[in-house]
């Protein structure tokens, strides 16, 4: 038995797993909407990448870090053969254009910018299930002249939702698929502009699955959109559009390779479990963001127009997560102590060998017991009945809830205004200019979703209570309501608002002469932000010299203001017909995001250190061409970003505290090549090739700032200290990020495909190759006071310092090397970042368009992805923010690293896998 287990455990460690076929998460044909659901999870995932204290995330948070990075920023620019293709082709691998976060893509609706001011991103779930209403779109790359605004580094788009632009007629769509949802129905209509000057358009749809293709998930979403427009005379039109997609959906969580191996599936979902024999998911998202936009179009004359908008959005986003009181056992089924590899270090062959395990049979006894636990489905999922039982037992003695389900709310109220002037001066000169303004109030709080059989919960901070005592001021979530008894529906834990105000003045000018064309853009941005605490957290009280406390939690912080702006220039030369050479460059200073601006926003008003304007530099060169039947684009780009601020939050078990880790002064570079080719063999048969090679790197070791919830001031001070082992001086804490890749997107992707059509039949086949997908790196593991610091004790013949650490150790754990002679850093190495195995995916689709009498038509399309059922393609993942060692004296960085833990967090990142074979059948009928 011992040998068998040894072999199997080694197998999980070393191999890519040929697992049983499981079904994938959903992808819709419409690229922009494909990843809306995951995109919408950005809040929880960014907040908690691995919040094992009370979450399943990691997004938790972080368990959904990967999901957070899933970006639908590939805008469909109609005149760019590369951009118009890649979103559709590579969405299955969560491809991000130029590896850029979605915050660098700018999305407009009717000309009104709708990127979220707190997070920077456009939330595509706003338009979820409204495919038929959102097809009217104008795209623009980074520097391209457009009529709606200055877009981000990843480009932008403007969706026209005016009723008069809806396709005239009615349409019913029915879809079946094996993805997040299983069925979809949609009805849309458009009257076109009627004789009375009115136009109406609308859509209503539903997407649902009692159980999605990932076990334990469900999907339940209604979509609606109603647009009306009235023309007043020749020159004026008013348009009102309102839409929303109330959605309730259960989530999938990432897990470790060991858990996938034990469950024999790369689609194992740790988020659900049995309650009374029925499946229940712990992480359920409710999302509804009703939006309305009133647009006034003023056709001033034949050559100029003014479009003005006022928009309102009220976002109600919440996600549930399990919580538990300090002493309760972590309820996650894939909590590391439930995994067999927590019993002994399976990576250490001096332990993981038959002789040693025979000598110590109790190790295998326990290992096998945990293996047995995972052998049943119920055993490897959440045991809801147990949670209820424990709560009821505790309640019988008057105790509060030991387990509960909380609902984390990230609501937003947004008012946005814009006015855009477009002027066609003459054939050689065009002007677009405008203003944008946005006032956003983010509302962040937690409510009690379910007490799981208990009758109450007491609103105290369990971490602070451990450090300071239950009766301490610091233990109170809200000193204004100490020891508040929480019932279902009550707000508890934290409650704060983030106010952001933004205004932009912009202009674009295009000058064309002969075969040359120049486009100049400039913008001036003002942003200010502040926090408003609605609870008086006990840890947000600053001790004064006289022993009294100053509240830094309740009420408003100071405003932080940023004046940014930028300029871009694009030069185009068309030496011959169908040949365009383009060179572009841009410079911008951009305000930091409010979500990264506060050191511990749940608790207090302090801003992070080094909060300043980001610097962006970009350059593009591309050549679009057509030679006979061959057309395409070849391009190269370079982006340099400096002074960025990035924040993650996670549960840190080294000091049992919820921790915010902020990096400031971050520098990154993205550069790469892009290619798109299409060859028309005959008029109805073509082949295409699309490819990209990107590099997306952190290029420095940024400053780090830790803020740990519940820890005493002195302990908080300690965890931010990094001691120079030579001089004993304190150094500025850093993250060894230099050379780390941006994770969870393929940096290399290639496509070869063919399209054929005949008599209204359409066929397409694509083979896609993906490589250089990196795991999201843990900043915590790469803190210079967490990594080992080494000082040379000798020099070699060349006078170079010699260190005791091996190259292999550096690769695995990273190292800070000090030069004893100078007392300075010789080199900082971050632990090597895991690169996933490359792989390919085969997709195909077949469609038929049927023209019916009386102007009616019908179309049927069946598309299938991953026909070879490659279940081993990792789309992303993240390293756990935990250390493999105990610490004798935490954070002093002076050799205090303690003994090794049996479980190796560094070897157990959490992963997401691309969908296995999946299909989407779509039938629509138009009349």
């Amino acid at each position, binding site marked *: 038995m011992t040998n068998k287990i040894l072999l199997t455990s080694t197998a999980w460690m070393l191999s890519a797993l040929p697992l049983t076929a499981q079904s994938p998460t959903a992808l819709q044909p419409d690229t922009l909407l494909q990843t809306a659901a995951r995109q919408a999870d950005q809040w929880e995932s960014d907040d908690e990448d691995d919040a094992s204290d009370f979450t399943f995330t990691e997004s938790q948070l972080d368990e959904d870090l990967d999901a957070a990075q899933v970006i639908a920023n590939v805008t469909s620019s109609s005149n760019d053969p590369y951009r118009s293709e890649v979103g559709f082709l590579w969405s299955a691998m969560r491809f991000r254009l130029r590896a850029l976060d979605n915050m660098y893509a700018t999305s407009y609706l009717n000309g009104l910018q709708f990127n979220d001011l707190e997070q920077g991103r456009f939330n595509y779930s706003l338009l979820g299930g409204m495919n038929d209403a959102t097809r009217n779109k104008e795209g623009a790359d980074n520097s391209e002249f457009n009529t709606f605004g200055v877009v981000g580094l990843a480009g932008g788009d403007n969706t026209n939702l005016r009723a008069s632009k809806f396709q005239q007629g009615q349409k019913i769509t029915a879809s079946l698929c094996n993805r997040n949802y299983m069925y979809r129905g949609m009805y849309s209509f458009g009257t076109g502009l009627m004789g009375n000057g009115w136009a109406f358009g609308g859509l209503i749809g*539903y997407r649902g699955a009692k159980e999605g293709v990932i076990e334990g998930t469900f999907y339940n979403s209604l979509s609606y959109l109603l647009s009306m427009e009235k023309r007043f005379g020749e020159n004026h039109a008013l348009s009102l559009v309102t839409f929303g997609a109330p959605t309730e959906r259960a989530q999938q969580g990432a897990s470790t390779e060991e858990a996938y191996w034990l469950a024999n599936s790369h689609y194992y979902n740790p988020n659900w479990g049995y309650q*009374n024999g029925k499946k229940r*998911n712990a992480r359920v998202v409710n999302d509804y963001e009703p939006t309305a936009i009133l647009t006034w179009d003023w056709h001033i004359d034949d050559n100029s127009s003014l479009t003005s908008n006022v928009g309102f959005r009220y976002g109600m986003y919440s996600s*549930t997560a399990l919580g538990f009181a300090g002493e309760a056992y972590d309820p996650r089924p894939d909590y590391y102590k439930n995994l067999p590899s927590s019993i002994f270090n399976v990576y250490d062959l001096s332990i993981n060998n038959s002789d040693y395990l025979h000598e110590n049979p109790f190790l295998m006894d326990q290992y096998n017991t945990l293996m047995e636990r995972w052998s049943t489905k119920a055993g490897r999922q959440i045991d809801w009945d147990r949670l209820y039982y424990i709560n009821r037992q505790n309640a019988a003695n008057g105790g509060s809830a030991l387990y509960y389900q909380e609902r984390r709310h990230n609501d937003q109220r947004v008012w946005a205004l814009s006015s855009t002037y477009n002027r066609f001066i003459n054939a050689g000169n065009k002007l677009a200019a405008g203003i944008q303004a946005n006032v956003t109030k983010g509302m962040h709080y937690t409510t009690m979703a379910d007490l799981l059989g208990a009758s109450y919960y007491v609103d105290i901070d369990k971490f602070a*209570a451990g450090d300071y005592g239950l*009766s301490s001021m610091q233990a109170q979530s809200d000193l204004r309501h100490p020891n508040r008894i929480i019932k279902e529906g009550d707000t508890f834990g934290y409650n704060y608002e983030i106010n952001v105000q933004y205004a932009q003045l912009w202009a674009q000018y295009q000058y064309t002469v002969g075969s040359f064309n120049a486009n100049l853009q400039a913008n001036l941005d003002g942003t200010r932000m502040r926090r408003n605490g609605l609870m008086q957290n006990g840890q947000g009280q600053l001790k004064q010299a006289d022993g009294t406390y100053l509240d830094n939690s309740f009420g408003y912080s100071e405003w932080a203001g940023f004046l940014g702006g930028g300029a871009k220039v694009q030069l185009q030369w068309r030496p011959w017909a169908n040949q365009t050479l383009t060179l572009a460059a841009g410079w911008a200073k951009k305000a930091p995001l409010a979500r990264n601006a506060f050191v511990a926003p749940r608790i207090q008003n302090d801003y992070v250190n080094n909060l300043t304007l980001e610097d962006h530099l970009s350059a593009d060169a591309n050549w679009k061409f057509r030679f006979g039947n061959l057309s395409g684009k070849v391009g190269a780009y370079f982006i340099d970003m400096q002074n960025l601020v990035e924040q993650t939050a996670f549960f840190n078990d080294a000091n049992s505290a919820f921790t915010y880790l902020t990096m400031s002064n971050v520098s990154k570079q993205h550069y790469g090549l892009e290619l798109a080719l299409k060859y028309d063999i005959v008029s109805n048969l073509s082949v295409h090739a699309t490819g990209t090679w990107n590099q997306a790197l952190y290029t420095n070791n940024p400053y780090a700032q830790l803020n740990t919830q519940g820890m005493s001031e002195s302990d908080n001070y300690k965890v931010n200290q990094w001691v120079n082992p030579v001089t004993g001086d304190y150094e500025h804490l850093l993250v060894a990020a230099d050379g780390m890749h941006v994770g969870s997107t393929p940096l290399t992707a290639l496509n070869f495909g063919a399209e054929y059509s005949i008599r209204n039949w359409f066929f397409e086949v694509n083979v896609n190759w993906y490589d250089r997908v990196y795991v999201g790196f843990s900043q915590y593991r790469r803190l210079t006071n967490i990594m080992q610091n080494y000082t040379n004790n000798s020099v070699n013949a060349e006078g170079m310092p010699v260190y005791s650490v091996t190259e292999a150790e550096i690769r695995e754990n990273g190292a800070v090397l000090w030069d004893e002679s100078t007392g300075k850093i010789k080199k900082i190495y971050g632990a090597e970042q895991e690169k996933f195995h490359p792989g390919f995916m085969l997709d195909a689709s077949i469609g038929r368009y049927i023209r019916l009498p009386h102007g009616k038509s019908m179309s049927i399309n069946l598309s299938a992805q991953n026909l070879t059922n490659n279940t081993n393609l990792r789309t992303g993942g993240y390293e756990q923010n935990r250390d493999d060692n105990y610490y004798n004296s935490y954070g002093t960085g002076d050799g205090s690293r303690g003994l090794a833990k049996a479980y190796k967090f560094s070897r157990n990142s959490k992963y997401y896998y691309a969908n296995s074979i999946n299909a989407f059948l779509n039938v629509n009928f138009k009349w």
Partner: protein
Amino acid sequence: MKKLFYILAVPVLLTACYDSLDDPDTSKFADEELQAQDTFPAANISIKALKDLYCQSNTNATYSRNSSNWEFLIEDSLYIEGVICANDGQFGNLYQSLFVRSIDSSTGEDACIQIGVKNPCLYPLYKIGQRIRLDLRGLYVGGYSQSPKIGFPYFTSSGNHNLGPILLETFAQHVQLIGDPDPTCAECQDVDYISNPFPTQSRNIDYYPAIATVKGIFPEADSVKQAILAPDDLEDAGYGVNREFKLANGTMMQIRTSTGNEISNIVMPQGDTVQLSGILLFDTYESKWQMNLRDTADFKILK
């Protein structure tokens, strides 16, 4: 218009909440999940006899790290019976531990032993006053720092082979719950070392572990660095802090408390006599009696 209404109404009906389930019936949970499904025979060894056999010394132990830490693998069908007289409680100061005690009403034989169980929240599962029968076959019995313990071997973070906790799954297969918990039973009453003399014999496992009440003072309360029982700054490698406590008869004992729980934040009074209740152990390293409090209610200041 009517048509539009129906079109609108159907999806609204469809979007009725999916995330809604009835609360589960947990009346059989303990029977099915917290104990073995086979009925165990009556106890065939007393706790005292078990301690005498396996906890006195390391002679013939299955494994012995040193004279303080050893273990015997129980290969015979041995069953003990007793009442859970202490568990980790809401503050977890008795981390991953149950204490089982049996008092023979006819002979007066009174013995208690610790069971290590790998779970930080045992108290709602195995409650005070719960009578249990334990199948020892496959478990280990021995000394952990010479303290009698039933458990399972493990390697500490220092790499030491010690007698540690049993996986909860394993423990559930080895335990049978008998009747309902009765916290008023004799086994749950503290040994009174206020009215009765404190044991003069050190390191005698007849006297420990035990639930006991003592009275004394914290002689260092006015001079220590921090006035609370277990400040982080004084934490030792075992994540705990020892405080000197002087009994009325002059015996010096230690109050050991884990950091980071509510008990650790109890302020030691200067000069006042204090009544303490908890688990009585003997610290072989310091050669002193030791007490671990179970709850903040175990600490009472007597003016």
